[in-house]
């Protein structure tokens, strides 16, 4: 029984099986990415009402929040991959980890830059050593370190192991980024959507944001699938 389960699992995580069965999923997720990002951008830029305090500057939120969310989500996914690499030596997890780093780095870059652009007119400064901003900057450097290590080591298995260790060490920053607004007095605002009571945002402003978050998720998912297929093709 146990042998049968492990054989089935081994089949699902084999790069060959993944390559054969991922093209349809990639097609569907690419379609949803184009659809969700188009609708999200149009509704965020043209239909969402202006904020009574921030005016139209609040529209930066529609690219800043999804990018910041994905910067944490991708790292969490990489942490899971790192565990799968170190414990079970799963080849597919090695490829997932390798292709996710640069996507995570670019999401963190978007979050930092758009946050600075938004901060300039709202806070009067583009940068402050606030807990949320500083921990997000540290996350950017962690992504950069993983990318550097992954590219510096030629042997793919050694590179994946070294990257996994750095990913696990860097994972401590994820709860710090997320809870920094609760643990310290920060200039950055607290949670707006994920609250136990109810979101402190009008529905007209919230639905384009949810569409953009969904669009960024499908974008990342599609890109990971596409790059993983490329890596498998290279190793064939």
């Amino acid at each position, binding site marked *: 029984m146990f042998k049968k389960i492990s054989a089935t699992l081994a089949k699902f995580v084999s790069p060959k099986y993944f390559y054969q069965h991922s093209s349809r999923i990639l097609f569907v997720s690419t379609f949803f990415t184009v659809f969700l990002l188009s609708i999200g951008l149009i509704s965020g830029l043209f239909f969402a009402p202006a904020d009574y305090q921030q*005016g139209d500057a609040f*529209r930066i939120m529609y690219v800043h929040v999804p990018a910041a969310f994905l910067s944490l989500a991708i790292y969490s996914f990489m942490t899971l991959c790192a565990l799968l690499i170190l414990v079970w030596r799963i080849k597919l997890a090695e490829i997932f980890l390798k292709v996710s780093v640069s*996507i995570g780095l670019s999401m963190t870059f*978007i979050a930092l830059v758009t946050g600075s652009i938004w901060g300039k*007119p709202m806070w009067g400064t583009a940068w402050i050593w606030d807990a949320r901003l500083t921990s997000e900057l540290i996350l950017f450097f962690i992504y950069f370190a993983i990318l550097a290590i992954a590219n510096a080591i030629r042997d793919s298995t050694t590179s994946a192991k070294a990257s996994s260790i750095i990913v696990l060490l860097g994972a401590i920053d994820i709860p710090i980024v997320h809870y920094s607004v609760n643990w310290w007095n920060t200039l950055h605002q607290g949670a707006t959507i994920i609250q136990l009571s109810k979101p402190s945002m009008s529905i007209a402003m919230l639905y384009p944001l949810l569409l953009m978050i969904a669009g960024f998720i499908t974008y990342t998912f599609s890109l990971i699938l596409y790059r993983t297929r490329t890596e498998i093709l290279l190793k064939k």
Partner: protein
Amino acid sequence: MKLLNMSGYALYVWSAYGIAIAVLAVNVYLSIKARRKATLSSLKKK
């Protein structure tokens, strides 16, 4: 015109969107470029 002006925050809003879209587009471009390279090397091996 009112939309382009973004109630006086045009520079901030459009530059934020421009940078975000450019980074997302570069990611897609690099992925397609790597795929073409992989396909070519795979064909050469065959």
